[in-house]
């Protein structure tokens, strides 16, 4: 087999000598072996591995993260198998054999066209990956991360269920403002619903990580950190962990939540609101952040709402009205995207 005219011309200009006739054979062999590997491994990853890649599909964010995981694994499969096949082929075919003379190859020389091309191509690849990654991160389902009190990205759904997540050493509690603001250690989430998790803390910095929801947001005292997720029709258990070293029992700061059908969620919400009504009366007025007193100030309130403005700003445009939280619709549960 002979080297192509163009290929040899380029190699001559680069000063790396003319391709040996067998170079192309090696290239073809390696490519074919790699292609054969990819022909079966990629479909296997697509059909078999994808469904079991965490964090599964309880929310659109989680599903998007699962898709990202699949893409990463498929690209890694292509790149790593290519390197591995090349390495094994080189060891077998190009190894130094006994009696074979050793010598340097042709000297390498710079070539501005190749250098400029390399810089241009890699720049395009990096920028393309940056743009694609950013769009992919935000547009389909949000990044699932805390966006602070003024989120850049908000789900398209008209109705968003707010759930307040309160970190305290070393337990998470949840307040449901649309059910009168009761507070509980139970995390219950309706399916097919866009949810705004308002994450805050009463003491030190925690990090609320609901793995299967694809949501992770820092819980800072005095801060309202908003993270969104839109649940799908899938139901299931959610593992919640603190992901910020927050003290001696940080490792014990975990609990479980459940994604349940909307009707079940509404029933649960109303029954909890009724059951916890005496306790809710004792809680401070609902706010997005609380300022903790040192050891509690008897007989004053145990902790103090500090900033209610974001509450109204956040939901004014979504509900078309503002006012005290008591005027909000009883339940903001609706079909995804409706």
């Amino acid at each position, binding site marked *: 087999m002979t080297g192509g005219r163009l290929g040899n011309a380029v190699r001559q200009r680069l000063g790396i000598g003319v391709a040996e006739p067998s170079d192309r054979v090696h290239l073809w062999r390696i490519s074919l072996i790699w292609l054969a590997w990819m022909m079966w491994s990629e479909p296997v990853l697509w059909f078999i591995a994808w469904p079991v890649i965490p964090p599964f599909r309880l929310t659109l964010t989680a599903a998007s993260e699962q898709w990202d995981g699949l893409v990463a694994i498929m690209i890694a499969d292509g790149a790593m198998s290519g390197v591995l096949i090349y390495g094994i082929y080189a060891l077998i075919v190009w190894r130094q054999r006994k009696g074979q003379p050793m010598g340097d190859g042709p000297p390498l020389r710079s070539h501005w066209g190749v250098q400029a091309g390399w810089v241009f191509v890699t720049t395009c690849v990096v920028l393309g990956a940056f743009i694609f990654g950013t769009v992919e991160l935000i547009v389909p389902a949000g990044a699932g991360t805390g966006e602070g009190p003024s989120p850049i990205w908000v789900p398209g759904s008209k109705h968003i269920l707010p759930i307040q997540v*309160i970190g*305290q*050493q*070393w*337990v998470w*509690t949840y307040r449901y403002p649309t059910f009168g603001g009761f*507070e*509980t*250690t139970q995390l219950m989430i309706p399916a097919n619903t866009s949810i705004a998790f308002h994450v805050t803390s*009463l*003491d*030190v910095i925690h990090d609320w990580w609901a793995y299967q929801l694809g949501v992770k947001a820092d819980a800072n005292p005095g801060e309202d950190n908003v993270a969104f997720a839109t649940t799908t029709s899938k139901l299931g258990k959610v593992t919640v962990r603190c992901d910020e070293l927050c*003290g*001696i*029992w940080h490792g*014990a700061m975990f*609990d479980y939540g459940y994604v349940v059908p909307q009707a079940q969620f509404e029933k649960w919400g109303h029954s909890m609101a009724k059951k*916890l009504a*005496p*306790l809710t009366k*004792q*809680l*401070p007025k609902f706010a997005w952040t609380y300022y*903790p*007193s*040192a*050891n*509690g*100030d*008897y*007989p*004053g*309130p*145990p*902790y103090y709402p500090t900033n209610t403005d974001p509450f109204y700003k956040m939901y004014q445009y979504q509900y078309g009205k503002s006012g005290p939280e008591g005027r909000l619709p009883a339940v903001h549960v609706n079909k995804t995207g409706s």
Partner: protein
Amino acid sequence: MTRPWRIGIAVAFFALITGLCFWGVFTWVRRQPPNVNFAAHHDAGRPVHLTVQTVGTMGTGHPHPAWVSYLVKAPDGKWVHSTQWELPAYTRIDVTVLEYDGGHALRNQVWAKVQGTIGGVMTLNGKTVRQVSPQTAYGETHTFTVPALGLNVPFAGVNGNSPTFCTTAPCTPSHVHNVIKFSFMTRAPGQYHWQCMFPCAAGYLDGNGGPMQTLGYMDGFLKVMPSPGHPLQVGQ
């Protein structure tokens, strides 16, 4: 003495000192309060009686005299400064808390509600209650909270200005105190972390440091042991 001998002795001495340092550091780091065993001599099917006290300060003679703490009455009747209690699995635990500390208000009133006890109630000085409020007499003081069991019991505080206010543990019934009683069921064998949900470490930032972050004071473990004589739910 030859040079190699001198070098050998120096190396051995250095290794010995290093080893002692490591042993000392790891012994200090791994130190724990003693386990108080309520499971060993427990009669199958009968409840375990657990009596604890909460004190505002450990008092003189203790490494941390100003720290708030729990103490437990061991099966032999002696008060032990420990928060690691071995309990039998699937067994009813009848708890009596002698509360000797003054009250304020819980940082988060969600912990003012009794949860996870048998009947969802406790008794406070003989009166059945489901919730404690900061307006209760001298306010709220500590909680006994086992997150994995969904158990939370708030305690009402005592008058911190009383002439009989206890300042040195163990306190006695002659000191001003509240008596809180409740019962709960243990579950499968394992270690269940418990803690006080009131950041009550006076002198530390937001009450979060010191005794709140040290095993043996305001947090500990229920070490639930297998109880071969117990079929599931015995004693319920």
